[in-house]
């Protein structure tokens, strides 16, 4: 049961990192001067946005490998990561909105990163839709893989277009201004915590998908045995 062992370790690591990150976000890091206490949402928003992109990267890799090798395990990887990805994309939109409201006074703003995240959300949706609307399962997997590949390649272009659209210089996309060392550290720990969590969720979801496949196979066998005349 090597898989279980890995997952247990990941659970422990995630838990510890999360606890550390929470401590740092609420106790250790100083309050930011201009925005006040709300700025701490930043330590939630960046990791969550990072995960939505990381998930899609894994979807991309899984999709390419699936199209190349036709092995179902790559499709399992891609679709599991997509499921986690769309959840975190939704969370990015939610935290982005909860940040926008106190800081800018509006629930939504068409600023580049939020806009790009919204488009990414739709691409994730297209991934699932392409899969579910296909006539058969394996075609669904192929179609989803196509969306995964095109979507991922599109992400940097979307980021570029939305940034330029708002008149902001693309260089300023990731960090605005400097970050105090304590803030940077808190951010790093939060990022690590969420990445560990992502890995755990991914392994868990993959294992479940494999279970579902196994069940289908066993059901097929049971039906067979039943039909070949045993009582």
């Amino acid at each position, binding site marked *: 049961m090597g898989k279980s062992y890995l997952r247990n370790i990941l659970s422990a690591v995630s838990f510890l990192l999360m606890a550390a990150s929470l401590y740092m976000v609420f106790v250790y890091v100083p309050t930011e001067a201009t925005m006040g206490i709300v700025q701490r949402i930043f330590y939630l928003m960046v990791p969550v946005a990072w995960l939505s992109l990381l998930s899609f990267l894994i979807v991309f890799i899984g999709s390419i490998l699936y199209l190349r090798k036709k092995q179902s395990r790559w499709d399992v990887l891609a679709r599991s990561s997509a499921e986690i990805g769309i959840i975190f994309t939704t969370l990015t939109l939610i935290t982005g909105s909860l940040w926008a409201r106190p800081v800018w006074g509006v629930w939504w703003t068409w600023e580049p990163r939020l806009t790009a995240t919204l488009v990414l959300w*739709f*691409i994730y949706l297209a991934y699932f*839709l*392409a899969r579910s*609307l296909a006539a058969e399962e394996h075609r669904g997997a192929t179609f989803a893989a196509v969306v995964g590949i*095109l979507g991922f390649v599109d992400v940097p272009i979307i980021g*570029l277009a939305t940034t330029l*659209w708002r008149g902001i210089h693309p260089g300023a996309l990731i960090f605005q201004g400097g970050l105090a060392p304590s803030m940077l550290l808190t951010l790093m720990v939060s990022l690590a915590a969420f990445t560990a969590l992502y890995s755990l969720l991914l392994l868990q979801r993959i294992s479940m998908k494999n279970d579902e496949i196994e069940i289908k196979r066993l059901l097929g066998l049971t039906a067979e045995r039943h039909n070949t005349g045993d009582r």
Partner: protein
Amino acid sequence: MRFLSKALVITWKDALSEMRTKEVLSSVVVFALLVIVIFNFAFGASQEKMLLVAPGILWVTFTFAGMLSINRAFIPEKEQGCLEGLMVCPISREAIYIGKMLGSLLFMLIVEAIALPIFTFLFNLPVLSLQLVVVTVLATLGFVAVGTLFSALAVNTKAREMVLPILFLPIVVPLIISAVKASELALSRESWATLASWLGIMGAFDVIFLVVSFLVFAFVIEE
């Protein structure tokens, strides 16, 4: 050049069948004009407002018309059972892609060529500039590159035409953004330099997605 000639056979076949009836072409042109008229009512009449909303109206119109055009790339084939026949031909999948894509491109360019002057006429705007033509061609190219791929995909799903916009519009968002922005600049008679970054994005999109769609197409269309 055997590859290209095979692809062009498909383009020519589609063009011929369309030229015989001209049904789809005329419907799409009329549709585009209707959309423009309706938007005109929706957005009011003052001339300054027109300059503001014209690029948006233009590209929403072309997007809608584009969706109609791209739908006809594969759906009629599937419905009439020609798709299997096409696949049995001694022609590579990639050639089918290029052929269909060029067909849709030609179709859309004709629609745009008809719609743009009428747009100028209705909106009193300097639409017939080289800048705008370049913007339109670049945007249409990208649109058709991705659209042809997704049309082949949509044809093999349960919902067909309905699912096509949902699948493919998010992907062409950067193209639409660039087209609208660049059109805005072109309509204001700005210099080529200001358009440069938008043209760059569209050009990059076109190249990247032509290549990717070309590579991936075979997977979508095989049984």
